[in-house]
């Protein structure tokens, strides 16, 4: 193998290290060593990406709001995140006198744990997961359901009414949006016939169809609920600064605050990665383009979806809490259920006929897009968000 093979699929480097370590150490040392290599590799990807994301977001939002954004530190302000990090480290981390000290201290740490754990199953390329779990996507759903507890820990322990209000909103919102999110993922799971992340990607590559084409409705429901779970601006009622100061992290400062801030970006990165995995063929590309390494394409897709998240943030106004909850239960949930039902029928057809018959996938694509369009239009006519003065 030459150097390009190692760059093309980083798993080859891991295999090389495993071979080398197997000759030197006993089993569990090798196991630990490989785990360590994987963790370091994920951090090498994650830390610069987080800094890049913060910079991209601030620059793009600046453009949307017809101003410059950070442009003083380094070329195009690219070193701004570094300056911010240094500033935050030097700041004092205050603790309110009446706070529940232990829980107050634990909350920023606890919110970062699920955010990082999700990265264990992301398939960056063929054989390039840290742990390609058999239950991959279920693991992601289970782990990300834990972050609501950390948010509530922060809100409760601060002993501040704005923090508590923010935390209450956060919990209500996260619990509500988890339902349509899981239901929309189920459609993809049924099509792929597996919970394993690498298997879901492989299925899309084998059948030459990205699941966005068969699951347009599922994608929309997933995308909207995932954005709501992230608590980014169209849906950030839990830290709405015009209503409740800064929500659950009102009392946090210094490094503790920046852990919340970083956890938000870490989650945004993970959601972009999961969208690319489930609906956009993961590491796969067109045949000519796959001269470049698969993991590069995966990362390119992640950045693309993050840019869309920033776009939404720059464009859409914030929803009110009743509108947000109504949207989850009256709009997304019924659509997700219908989508699930239709997908079930399609899977039966899919299994009945040989896929070699070329008409199945195109007709499915047409049917699904027509259905998604009709349903969305019908639902917007049936159900409208109440106006504030109504």
């Amino acid at each position, binding site marked *: 193998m030459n150097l390009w093979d190692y760059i093309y699929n980083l798993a080859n480097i891991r295999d090389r290290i495993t071979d080398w370590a197997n000759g030197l150490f006993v089993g*569990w040392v090798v196991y630990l060593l490989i785990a360590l290599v994987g963790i370091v590799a994920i951090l090498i990807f994650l830390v610069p990406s987080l800094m890049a994301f913060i910079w991209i977001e601030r620059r793009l939002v600046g453009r949307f709001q017809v101003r410059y954004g950070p442009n003083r530190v380094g070329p195009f302000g690219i070193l701004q995140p570094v300056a911010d990090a240094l500033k935050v480290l030097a700041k004092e981390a205050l603790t309110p006198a009446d706070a*529940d000290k232990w829980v107050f201290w634990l909350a920023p740490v606890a919110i970062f744990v699920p955010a990082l754990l999700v990265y264990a199953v992301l398939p960056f390329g063929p054989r390039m997961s840290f742990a390609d*779990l*058999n*239950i991959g996507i*279920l693991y992601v759903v289970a782990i990300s359901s834990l972050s609501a*507890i950390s948010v*509530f820990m922060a809100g*409760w322990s601060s002993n501040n009414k704005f923090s508590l209000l923010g935390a209450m909103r956060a*919990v209500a919102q996260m619990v509500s949006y988890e339902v349509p999110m899981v239901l929309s993922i189920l459609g993809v799971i049924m099509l792929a016939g597996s919970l394993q992340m690498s298997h879901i990607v492989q299925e899309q590559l084998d059948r030459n169809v990205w699941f966005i084409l068969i699951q347009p409705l599922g994608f929309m429901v997933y995308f909207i609920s995932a954005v709501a779970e992230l608590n980014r601006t169209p849906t950030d009622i839990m830290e709405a600064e015009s209503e409740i100061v800064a929500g659950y992290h009102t009392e946090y400062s210094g490094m503790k605050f920046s852990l919340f801030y970083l956890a938000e970006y870490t989650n945004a990165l993970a959601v972009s990665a999961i969208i690319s995995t489930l609906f956009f063929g993961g590491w796969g590309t067109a045949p000519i383009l796959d001269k470049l390494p698969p993991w590069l394409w995966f990362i390119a897709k992640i950045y693309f979806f993050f840019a869309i998240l920033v776009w939404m943030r720059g464009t859409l106004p914030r929803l009110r809490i009743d509108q947000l909850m109504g949207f989850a239960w009256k709009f997304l949930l019924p659509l997700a259920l219908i989508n699930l039902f239709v997908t079930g029928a399609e899977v039966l057809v899919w299994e009945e006929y040989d896929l070699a018959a070329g008409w199945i996938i195109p007709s499915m694509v047409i049917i699904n897009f027509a259905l998604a369009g009709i349903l969305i239009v019908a639902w917007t006519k049936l159900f409208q968000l109440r106006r504030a003065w109504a």
Partner: protein
Amino acid sequence: MSGAGIVIAFWVLAITSVGSALAVVWVRDIFRAALFLVLCFASVAGLYITLNADFLAAVQILIYAGAISILLIFAIMLTRDTRSAGRSTYLRNPAFLIALLLFITLLFAVLNTDWQAVAQVGTEPSTTAIAQLLFDKTKGFVLPFEIASVLLLVAMIGAIALVKED
């Protein structure tokens, strides 16, 4: 993975789960007690992983640590006076009786279980096996499964009907 790792993991998880379960009872602050309960649920999920029951572990995290704990937290939020939650009430003796009955039941279950048969841990991932057992056409549990989901649906509609305004 080597056997030593599993043994270490088992002891760490077992001590964490028992310790946090005791803390749930002993801690005065009701919110901290709820947090210890989450820790207890999570370490039980870890125990499932050491038994190769990956699906069960994920469901344990999702339902117990993720959803049931949120329910508890909502209950705490709706409690008017959480500071006096640690005080004894007139329900102390009935609660003690129920706890004692539960303990006796569990003791019987523990003593009458054939642990040798249970100790053989499968090495295969269990997701497919669970699906086979549940939804097999001849000897599966499709009907009880559907009845359970209808029951949950009825409970949900009942709850909505109870709190409906008009």
